[in-house]
């Protein structure tokens, strides 16, 4: 299945509007499997209604690719089954750890940018890929602190993981922007250094700038102009790649969200011309 254009994350608060009044530009739907796996009732009913109209792509939250706990086989088996049901072209999760010593933090916690971490993550991505039976992609996260002394920058870390694991990259341009602001580097230079030939999907979102000293990747604000510009910059380098608008909280009037989808779609089309 070929994904293209602009997608939206299927959040419960948005489900009715997506199904009843979708923006005309909407081209695909992204779901976090953990919110739908092992769940009956309204959620799978909404997903089924969406799956009739749009391609579905899965984006996980708790595989803990950088964690040291084994990825639970039952979680992987359920995920594999779910991925088959929705015919996702790939499954993505984050370059982070979420689980340690059996505790599931439900937070995307940073990994050290080291060679040991590259090897560790890549092996786990390959194992997960084998278990799922579909390609995987890894997403760069927003990180607010780095543990210890990095041996490389974030772009090299991502590049080495995807090269070693043979997986795709889900490039979150908002995360690059947030990290650039918080850690004092140039976002465009970092994007340019990323393994852009491996990008299968792009994420954009809003962030919270209440504290200019540390901006937060909240997915609860409108996408900022700087991030739209960074997206256009990125797409000119990657070519046509599906773009997903992440909005997880503090939902605006539906028309405002539709306007964001339309603006993203215009950028995608402009770059494709």
């Amino acid at each position, binding site marked *: 299945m070929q994904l293209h254009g602009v997608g939206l994350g299927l959040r419960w608060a948005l489900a009715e509007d997506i199904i009843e009044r979708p923006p005309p530009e909407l081209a695909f739907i992204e779901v976090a499997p*953990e*919110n739908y*796996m*092992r*769940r*009956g*009732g*309204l959620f*799978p*009913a909404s997903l089924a209604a969406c799956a009739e109209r749009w391609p579905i792509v899965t984006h996980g939250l*708790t595989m803990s690719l950088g*964690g*040291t706990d084994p990825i*639970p086989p039952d*979680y992987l088996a359920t995920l594999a089954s779910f991925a088959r049901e929705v015919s996702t072209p790939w499954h993505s999760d984050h370059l982070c*750890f979420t*689980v*340690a*010593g*059996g*505790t*599931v*933090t*439900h*937070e995307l*916690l940073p990994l*050290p940018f*080291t060679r*040991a*971490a590259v090897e*560790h993550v890549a092996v786990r991505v390959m194992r997960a890929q084998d278990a799922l039976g579909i390609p995987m992609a890894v997403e760069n996260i927003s990180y*607010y*602190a*780095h*543990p*210890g*002394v990095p041996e490389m920058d974030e772009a090299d870390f991502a590049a080495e993981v995807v090269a070693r694991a043979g997986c795709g990259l889900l490039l979150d341009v908002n995360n690059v922007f947030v990290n650039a602001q918080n850690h004092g580097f140039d976002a465009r230079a970092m994007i340019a250094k990323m393994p852009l030939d491996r990008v299968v999907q792009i994420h954009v979102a809003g962030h919270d700038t209440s504290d200019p000293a*540390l901006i*937060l990747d909240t997915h609860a604000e409108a996408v900022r102009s700087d991030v739209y510009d960074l997206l256009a910059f990125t797409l000119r380098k990657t070519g046509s790649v599906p773009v997903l608008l992440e909005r997880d909280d503090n939902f605006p009037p539906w028309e405002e969200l539709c306007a964001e989808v339309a603006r993203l779609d215009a950028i995608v089309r402009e770059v494709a011309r």
Partner: protein
Amino acid sequence: MSPFAYQGALCDALFASDPSDAAFAALGANAERWKVYRRMVRLRFAASIEHAFERLRAVTGDDRFYEMVWRFLADAPPRSHYLRDVPGEFLQFFERHRDRLMRDFTLPAYALDLARFEWAELETAYSFEETRAAGVGPLAMDGVPVLTPAHRLIDLAYPVHRMGTDGHDATMRAAPFSLCLYRDAKTHEVAILELTPVTAAMLSLMESQKSTLTEIVRNAAEAVSVSVDVAFVEALSTLLADLLERGVLLGTLVA
């Protein structure tokens, strides 16, 4: 600290009741930035748990409620990959430490029942087990009855299911109730049935899928000392028809 040893140290700092500044400093970089993760993690779990236990929170007030949540996170941090399971883990923690929590937070006697009821509502809404339609036939007295998987039976010592969302009910008196919560197959809404003792006994026996309907009726009647007379049989017929119409009872297991 080794590259991966830090993961356990960060986890400890995120969940501990009162981690020291040294615990954050040991992680490297700016300690204040690691504390941002602690705030985010705790807010996410608090939001998930308060969403599930809206009425319990109204009863305890915010301060006591969040203190219970922080103690849960410190003593029994979440283990599930599914965020929606975390309130259920909080309830297990409450049940395991009932006496201590009731005493430390001066909770009303019905607090645990209220938490159990609120979680049962959510569990019913989330229920995902499926019954194969091909495996269920029309209801027959000599067959093994099948209930919808989207149901929960719960026994309460207090009628907390009749409470509103406006806080502590000082008039609440102990009164045992047996409930069947089930999810409507069309609307997906959760509905509640207050059960008579004999109906509660029958539904409980039906859950095990081991006995025929005839055996279940006889055993349930015996258990609650009800004689199976004409009036009982008429009431049973009405009850079974109602349960079938509601989709609580699906039919009889087909071998």
